[in-house]
């Protein structure tokens, strides 16, 4: 039932590479490994780490995208988190935010709870769902070359942009990422909307 395909990309390296030249982009993470992957790249004030609310990352980013139309907003999340709020893709597909890019680090597993299979390794195609939800630019990334080619698109292609990066299922080491919601949210808002907002 599960696909036996083997992937070689390492999630942390992928995230670091994507964020290397992020400019003024803001990043919203989903719960779990994505928090640590993003925080370990650089604990930027324009990172909003969601260490809870599974299924909420895309719509938090969408709300920011509406409020900050001149800035690119990235979601970096896992496949389990995305699936928990899968209806968000339909809502975002209707709204067509030009400045929103969703990147799913897809290890086909719930990494934080013991690596149980998610649906993405069992025949469910997230890129297909995004396409069918009217995302204008989508990509399936399975190797370094494809990653390299897509990184400019993440920042430059008109949104809503959606990419799935297939990675090895092994989790990366956890780091001491900021986890106090009041702290990260106010730090983010000051950095993105200004002190007076």
């Amino acid at each position: 039932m599960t696909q036996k395909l083997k992937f070689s990309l390492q999630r942390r390296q992928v995230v670091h590479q994507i964020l290397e030249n992020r400019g003024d982009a803001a990043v919203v993470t989903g719960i779990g490994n994505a928090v640590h992957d993003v925080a370990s790249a650089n604990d930027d004030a324009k990172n909003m780490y969601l260490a809870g609310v599974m299924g909420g990352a895309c719509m938090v980013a969408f709300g920011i995208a509406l409020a900050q139309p001149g800035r690119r907003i990235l979601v970096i999340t896992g496949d389990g988190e995305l699936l928990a709020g899968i209806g968000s893709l339909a809502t975002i597909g209707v709204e067509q935010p030009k400045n929103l890019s969703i990147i799913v680090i897809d290890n086909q597993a719930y990494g934080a709870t013991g690596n149980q299979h998610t649906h993405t390794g069992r025949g469910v195609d997230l890129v297909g769902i995004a396409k069918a939800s009217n995302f204008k630019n989508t990509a399936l990334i399975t190797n370094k070359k494809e990653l390299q080619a897509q990184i400019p698109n993440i920042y430059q292609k008109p949104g809503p942009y959606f990419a799935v990066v297939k990675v090895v299922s092994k989790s990366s080491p956890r780091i001491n990422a900021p986890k106090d919601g009041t702290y990260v949210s106010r730090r983010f808002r000051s950095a993105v909307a200004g002190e007076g907002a």
Partner: protein
Amino acid sequence: MVGKRQNKSHWSVGVHKLFKEIGIKQIAYVPDGGLAQLIKRCQADRSIRSVVLTTEEEGVAQMAGAWLGGQRGALLTQSGGVGNCINMLSMIQECRIPLLSLVSMRGEWGETFPWQVPMGQSTVPALEAANVIVHHVSEAEKVLETVHAAAKLAFDANRAVSVIISQRISDSGRKG
């Protein structure tokens, strides 16, 4: 049907005007008969972005994002939708993000559809368990001042506040 009932004395006129005065830029909703007139007025207003959701929890997340990005928004939901928001509300509580929501009640005053009753009766306890402050209103002429007070508490005092609009006065309450 909604159009027929629309009139200038409806409470939605004042609430829509208030939304503009206090700088509401995003509203999010799952279509609901109880708030139909307010939704229609906001949709017709080009200064407010109206977002239709597949489920109400998306709206809680969107409102969190609106605030993070420096805008104000309001979530419009039916009482049934409150039951879809409880986990997402933990972000509002953990981050102490302001949240204004208008909840049109079902399953209470004169309800004729039994399936609405369980969620209608658990709406307020569920909101309060999620640390949301609840303001009740069951008279049409008091909706505006209640929403005004709730908006102050939400945006000026950084709290999650729900205005619970009784089925007695919501558009759905007048269904036959």
